[in-house]
């Protein structure tokens, strides 16, 4: 007998959370790349038009970012027809959830074979540093020190830039609670 199985609530919440967080990360990357010298320095090496993506396999939520000619990053949303120059692919929705809910460090997730890198590993190292830097801005200090290997002490960016991201984050955190409690 064939029976349609309903996707459990926790799994749905996880998917929504990952989708939402990728959107937060995308928007925040765009914002941070316009103002933060450290991120601009990391990004400066990437070729103009460089397309970066983070995706959940197979065909799960994704984010696409393009390096602009002025040295900033542009968030292109969750799908782009072009093949990215560098993609970070989570092997499973749950692995993306672990990283995006800051329960597993990005570098550790790589080390644990939970994600694949397609593209230049040197660029991947740079993008990991950019993501670490981003996390230190959009997260409260306590959570951030868990998500990145070392917490930089030279943060000097105007808080308001990230207030929008923080609001997103609050919404997103509710999903984490939903997932955890189920």
């Amino acid at each position, binding site marked *: 007998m064939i029976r349609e199985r309903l996707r459990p609530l926790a799994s749905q919440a996880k998917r929504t959370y990952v989708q939402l967080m990728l959107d937060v990360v995308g928007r925040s990357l765009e914002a941070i790349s316009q103002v933060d010298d450290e991120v601009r320095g990391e990004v400066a*090496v990437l070729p103009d038009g460089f397309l970066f993506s983070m995706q959940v396999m197979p065909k799960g939520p994704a984010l696409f970012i393009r390096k602009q000619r002025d040295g900033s990053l542009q968030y292109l949303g969750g799908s782009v027809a072009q093949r990215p120059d560098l993609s970070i692919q989570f092997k499973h929705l749950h692995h993306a959830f672990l990283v995006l809910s800051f329960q597993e460090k990005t*570098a*550790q997730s*790589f*080390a*644990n*074979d*939970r994600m*694949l*890198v*397609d*593209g*230049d*590993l*040197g660029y*991947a*190292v*740079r993008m*990991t540093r950019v993501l*670490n830097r981003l996390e230190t801005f959009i997260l409260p200090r306590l959570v951030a020190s868990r998500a*990145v*290997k*070392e917490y930089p002490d030279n943060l000097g960016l105007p808080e308001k830039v990230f207030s929008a991201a923080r609001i997103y984050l609050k919404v997103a955190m509710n999903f984490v609670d939903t997932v955890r409690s189920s």
Partner: protein
Amino acid sequence: MSYYEFFCPVKVIAGQAALEHLPYEFSSRAVKRPMVVTDKGVRNAGLLDKVLAACEEGGMDITVVYDDVPADSSKQTVTAIAKEYRKQKCDGILAIGGGSPIDTAKAVNILVSEGGDDIAQYAGSGVLKRPLKPFFVIPTTAGTGSEVTNVAVIADTEKEVKLPFASGFMLPDAAVLDPRMTLTLPPQITAATGMDAMTHSVEAFTCLAKNPLSDAYAAAAIRKISNNLLKVMEKPDDAERRLELAQASTMAGIAFSNSMVGLVHALGHSLGAACHLPHGLCMSLFLPYVLEYNLEEIREPLSELLLHLAGPEIYAMTPKSQRAEESIATIRKLRDDLHRHCGLPRTLQETGKVEKSQLDRIAQMTIDDGSIMFNPKEASLEDARAVLEKAWA
């Protein structure tokens, strides 16, 4: 709780008269006309003849030999060898040599299995989806561990980039370790490649992706290197100890291909590229300084390694709080001894090939190297620069 993956499907054929097992191994994969990929150094050292003679005696004449692989293999070399393979209607590959012939053969195997003339189209990880042609490897340096790693790097000399390839399908069917193949390795290369294997093990044991299985291989490899490297320097024709080093190199390769390497390799890749120094030497130059830099992150595993580096007596005599420092001291002493035996440089200055003005550039390259991802401590540009400064003199 941790999570890890471990993969090594390579059959290891090791010991006395291991070469004589080749004809059987070829026949077990129905290979009738293998192509040998090697370099001039291997031929001139008489190692190629040993392999061909062992096969001939076993009823297998090997007639297709490409012995012109350059030290830094390029796209063009791969294309040329693949063309020859097709022309000669070969049905398998045997690589003999150090890192360059083995990497080249891995890339050739992709082309002759998947088709086409441009190896660049297969660059990246996870591109290959099915097994390649039968492939066998005989390493002739006890260091790189390439016979058990699933990666290869080939230079695209036109675009001036290095093309990385990674796939489990690139692993050979078997690796043959025969003491005759490393017996004549010159002292400095023996020392440098031994230190490369040592670094693979120590980094595998202390970096982010360490896991119980790679730990077991790494610890055992360190024990073999510690017990045999200096003895081989004293008595280069000791076949038994040569085999110990060859096995250690393969075990270290299995360890690091499953748990990756860290800052020593990131610095070493950069120094090697900037100053054209051999990879093993670069490893030896940075190993103790990087361990000092990482010390507080790796105190526990590094303390554990003292048992394998220095033996049970010294381990027992050293107070627990001093074991990590003692591990570093043991590695420093090994470097001093190697320097006495064969002049293997211990500092950047001693190489005579590095200018102090190059250090900034090398630091910059280091933080862009993929290996830095798995270093237990997140190294900034300033950190990399500081380690270089310490390694200077």
